């Protein structure tokens, strides 16, 4: 077998233009990113702009829409249902984020030790994370069923009054918080466990040698070192909480009496049940801006208060 002639590039014998182009880094770079760029342009960049345009239209998802300016946004400002959806979303977020993060921190500390059976305990905490949101919704719908639910049965056995849970407008949103904390706790625990295991042992020993109690070691050494993990979890959980949908759809469909209608559920209703796509897009953009502002504020506070090693 003879080796194929190697193309020699000298100043006198330059390869033809197409060959120089196809061998260049510019060409290679674009060839490599092309499939990803096409997919992301079509299914992300275009939709982002289109959504903005839709929010300025009256559109029913069928006929082409027509431009109505800021009318959707003006209507939103006066929409009392939207206002209460914002209220429910805020209540949910303000409860879900601290409860899940503080709970996960306590659990991670408890799980960060070498005792017999620790793998089983960890597994028990992680398993709900791989349970789908729909399954979580169905499980809690029956656990919290007023007549045949396990929780009411336990309350009954303990001699406590029966509750309506998801069917009571005053309780439903809190039940949703409990349910989603159950489903998401494992995620936060994994992040905290990883961060705890990243703390160098000698730092803790040094602190104990100085006579610090366990609690003060935790407060002044461990907690600051968990800062980056906490900041990540606060930002991440808030973004997720503001976008709550699946569990609401499966359990309450926004009821009873609209008491669990959160922003994304309202968006879904408007866009895909009442076919007010323009109005839905306006809700999506309001949500977008809200997420952006909340995230930026959290990161800004985080930068001043979280200490990063290395």
């Amino acid at each position, binding site marked *: 077998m003879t080796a194929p002639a190697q193309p020699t590039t000298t100043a006198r014998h330059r390869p033809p233009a197409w060959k120089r182009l196809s061998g260049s880094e510019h*060409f*290679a770079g674009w060839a490599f990113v092309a499939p990803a760029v096409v*997919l992301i342009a079509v299914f992300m960049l275009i939709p982002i702009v289109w959504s903005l345009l839709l929010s300025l239209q009256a559109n029913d998802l069928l006929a082409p829409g027509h431009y109505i300016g800021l009318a959707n946004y003006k209507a939103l400002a006066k929409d009392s249902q939207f206002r209460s959806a914002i209220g429910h979303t805020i209540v949910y977020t303000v409860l879900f984020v601290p409860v899940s993060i503080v709970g996960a921190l306590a659990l991670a500390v408890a799980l960060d030790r070498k*005792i017999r059976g620790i793998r089983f*305990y960890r597994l028990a905490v992680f*398993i709900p994370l791989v349970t*789908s949101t729909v399954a979580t919704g169905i499980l809690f719908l029956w*656990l919290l069923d007023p*007549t045949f639910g396990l929780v009411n049965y336990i309350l009954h056995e303990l001699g406590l009054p029966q509750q309506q849970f998801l069917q009571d407008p005053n309780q439903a949103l809190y039940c949703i918080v409990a349910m989603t904390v159950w489903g998401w706790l494992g995620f936060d625990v994994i992040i905290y466990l990883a961060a705890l295991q990243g703390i160098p042992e000698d730092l803790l020993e040094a602190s104990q040698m100085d006579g610090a109690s366990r609690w003060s070691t935790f407060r002044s050494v461990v907690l600051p070192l968990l800062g980056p993990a906490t900041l990540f979890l606060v930002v991440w959980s808030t973004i997720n909480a503001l976008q709550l949908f699946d569990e609401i759809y*499966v359990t309450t469909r926004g009821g009873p009496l609209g008491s669990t209608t959160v922003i994304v559920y309202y968006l879904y209703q408007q866009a895909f049940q009442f076919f007010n796509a323009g109005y839905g897009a306006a809700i999506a953009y309001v949500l977008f801006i809200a997420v952006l502002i909340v995230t930026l504020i959290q990161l800004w506070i985080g930068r001043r208060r979280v200490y990063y090693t290395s």
Partner: protein
Amino acid sequence: MTSTSAATAERLVTLDAPPARPRRRWPFSPWHLVLAPIALIMLIPLIWMLILSLETSSEAQSFPLVVLPSGLHFHNYVATWNSEPFGNFFLNSALYSLATVAGNLVFCSLAAYAFARLKFFGRDVLFILLLATLMVPYQVLLIPMFLIVKHLGMVDSVGGLILPNLCSAFGIFMLRQFFRTLPIELEEAARIDGTSRLGILFKIVLPLSLPALATLAIIQFMWSWNDFLWPLIIIDTASHAPLQLGLSTLQNAHRSHVNLVMAGTVMSQIPMLALFLIAQRWFIRSIAFTGIK
């Protein structure tokens, strides 16, 4: 000098102060008293699901509750399987998950390699644009995505589920960060030996990146397998639905037969649960990895 030693002595005294009581030895770590009830609370919803799925319809809906079923009524599973196109649900979910995992691995790797190693016209602008899309909530894309998929004639098809999710900005970003930590010398040596860029990616970079690729695969798989909102919007026909949508349909259709609903729920959770139990270490590493980056 004396004052320091006095202080030290005092400290030693206070440390020893209550004359060291013989420390009570527990036969087991007291942490079990904290952890066991928590584990029970976390597992009860799943155990209860299993129990209900094996009861008869009247056992499952009686008060006081039947905690131990009269027998193991496995035929609930058969009845549920036959009442809805469950085979299709599984097949559609498998297609949706595997196709999007494969798509992400291929397209994100290619793009991430270019962003990490090649200098090309417009790279930085493109990359910033990509990062910006990470900030946008999914719901903003939803309505136009639906309209685009409708224009492509793919509403109510598994293809319509898959196509918009074949590549993610998150995947590109994560792989690019990982590729940049690899030593460039190997790649340069291969380049001098005349290996093509594609060859370098597949023979050198990707084999060194298995942890990052596994992370992307696991995160994408979990996301697609459990995805509900997108299927809810574009799928109308039961036989085209993936599992989670099918499960929600089942819940609506059989409100009066909780045992059947639970049997369906158990079945739908088995694949992901089995995968998690087999590859627990990888799942946990992947989730921790997303949090730390």
